């Protein structure tokens, strides 16, 4: 039984990874023959201002989105945990954003947030707020994309945390109540520490997606305006499939993969430390 599993892993995971790694060591553009470059693509990457800009955008989008999704997800989970009516319906509604295809989500928000044609600015105008550029502003595009992703994925975080809340031992809360713990103190000193493993699990799952952020940006801004929303993944895609520079795109992807694996390892360590 072990051999087929190993064969499957080698074929489906190992081969593409090693092939990408090998390609990253080549000067290879579609339309020409590959030449061995050793670490040339990685040296180019270190001097490429667009790589560093992409890394900054990737990290900013990651940290902002993760924070927003954990906060919104926790808030929703606590609300649902206390709700006694229509729980099934509310959970179904919660699931609906993240089962939507990213293309649909991207197109939907693109139309809503269009500065000239969208309903968002019209609604702002009704309450006397000046129209915003949203995705067309270099300063606001990252927060706006983070907001869209939070709209889609905070419910997913909420469902994980809700499952975590439902497994917390009630006697701890009873003891805390006898000791007079209420409200914010109860949340900070009892609920959150007990819920930490679930929070870190949700953070790990979202980190993998957020560091590889692609679809919503590709649909809404294609990395613009300028390069203001060009994540590493978008930049690598452009290098590979628009500019056809497969060697350099592979070096970018290997670097991004290393960042994702690094983040996951850190979060797994945290998860172990938080287990009670």
């Amino acid at each position, binding site marked *: 039984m072990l051999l087929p599993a190993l064969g499957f892993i080698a074929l489906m995971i190992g081969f593409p990874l090693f092939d990408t790694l090998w390609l990253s060591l080549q000067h290879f*553009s*579609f*339309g*020409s023959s590959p030449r061995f470059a050793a670490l040339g693509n990685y040296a180019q990457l270190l001097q490429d201002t667009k790589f560093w800009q992409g890394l900054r955008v990737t990290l900013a989008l990651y940290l902002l989105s993760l924070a927003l999704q954990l906060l919104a997800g926790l808030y929703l989970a606590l609300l649902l945990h206390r709700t006694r009516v229509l729980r099934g319906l509310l959970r179904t509604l919660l699931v609906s954003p993240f089962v939507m295809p990213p293309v649909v989500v991207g197109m939907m928000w693109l139309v809503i947030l*269009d*500065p*000239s*044609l969208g309903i968002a600015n019209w609604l702002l105008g009704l309450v006397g707020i000046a*129209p915003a*550029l*949203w*995705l*067309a*502003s*270099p300063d606001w595009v990252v927060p706006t994309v983070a907001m869209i992703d939070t709209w889609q994925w905070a419910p997913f975080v909420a469902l994980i945390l809700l499952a975590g809340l439902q497994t917390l031992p009630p006697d701890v809360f009873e003891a805390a109540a006898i000791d007079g713990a209420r409200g914010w103190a109860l949340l900070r000193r009892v609920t959150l520490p007990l819920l930490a493993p679930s929070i870190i699990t949700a953070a790990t799952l979202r980190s993998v997606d957020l560091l590889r952020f692609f679809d919503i940006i590709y649909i809404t*801004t*294609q990395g*613009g*305006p*300028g390069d203001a929303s060009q994540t590493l993944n978008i930049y690598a895609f*452009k290098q590979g*499939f*628009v*500019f*056809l520079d497969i060697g350099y795109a592979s070096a970018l992807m290997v670097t991004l993969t290393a960042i994702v694996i690094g983040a996951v390892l850190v979060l797994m360590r945290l998860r172990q430390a938080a287990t009670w």
Partner: protein
Amino acid sequence: MNRTATRLLIAGFAACLLGEASSASAQGFDWKRHQGETIDFLTENHPWSNAVVAQLPEFEKLTGIKVQVDTFQEQQMRQRLVTLLQSKSQTVDAFMSLKSLEGRLYAHAGWYADLATLMHAPGETAPDYDVADLSHALVAGETFAGRLDGIPLNIEGPIVYYRKDVFQKCGIPPPASLDALMAAAAALHQCEPTVIPWATRGMKPALPYTFSNVLHNFGADYLDAAGKPVLCDPAGINAITWYADMLRQYGPPGAVNNSFLQTRELYGQGRAAMAFESSNEFGEMMKFPHRQDDTGVMLLPPGPGGASKPTVIGWGLSLSAFSTKTPAAWYFVQWATSKEMDAHLALQGIAPPRDSVANSAEYMAWLHQVPVRQDWAGLLKQMGATGTSEVGPPLDRQPQAREIVGDAVDSVLLGQASAHDAACNADKQIAAMQAEK
């Protein structure tokens, strides 16, 4: 390729075909010669291919050749195509190709089959297949290093759509120069503050299509005769300034992210008084209420560079150099780009690449049904006769070259750089690309 060389080339093709035609006519053309073969056709989801694919049973009946069609969105089609061609795959025989974007690279890589060789092959070309009838500018766009790598399928280029009723109400004549166009935008802004005076592309990869027309009308170019980048010359800087100023001062908010989609919607919905967008969008724009009655169309007015130099491009139908079924695939090309097919497609709003179709009674009758259609068709004719297919710096790696141009214009539009710095920086990057060769 200059116009004289293009004419000579076309005359050469025509002479070859004429010779071929006389022998073929004598013997009768054998459409069943490749009966029983199957060819693979990779295509974009495009009005041209959708209309042609609907007629495929007719081709299969005529020739006995079966056509397997793979249709993708443009970017996805290109991804699949380059992967197949790079691996010298024989699983694609015919494909749509946008030469202004990828032609140099594909030709340089040797991915296109030489169509002239197929034309010369005895008995392989129908006697009534008339290459000389195709637009010279479009044939030039399909020709690389003197070799015909594709047959043009349509003709398109950016044109100015304007609201005649709004211009009339504000007492503004249709602008006759780029200066007058900017003045008209300013006057429209005063007269109709709720209407956006000017809408065009601001998104980085999309804007070279419209910007190049402005650049050429300013008398500027991407490279000089010696191949040196010259966007940083005064005319180039003025063109960037004009393009960015028009969008910043008179364009829609957030224009930097706009492509054809937003421009079409803004104009179609009556939110914009002028739109500088592809002639291909004519059909869609005219579907909006009232636009068919209140729209005027014109080429981008001339600027300091003299007469207007419209951008004209078109999709082409090419064959893979790695195909083992090029004779059968060439039959498909002949059928799909024949006069009869072009005439059929023209009545569905696909601008014909053939002069005979553009002048045919049927097409004329269709145009005469609505006055603005005639103006639109007149512009297409003008573009075909005088246009240039240079959409970005003429380098093999067009997508990178266009990205550099888009970066330069957008950095000015966003106020991140002066036009001088943006243009000079673009020249440096283009020179670096040239040096990489």
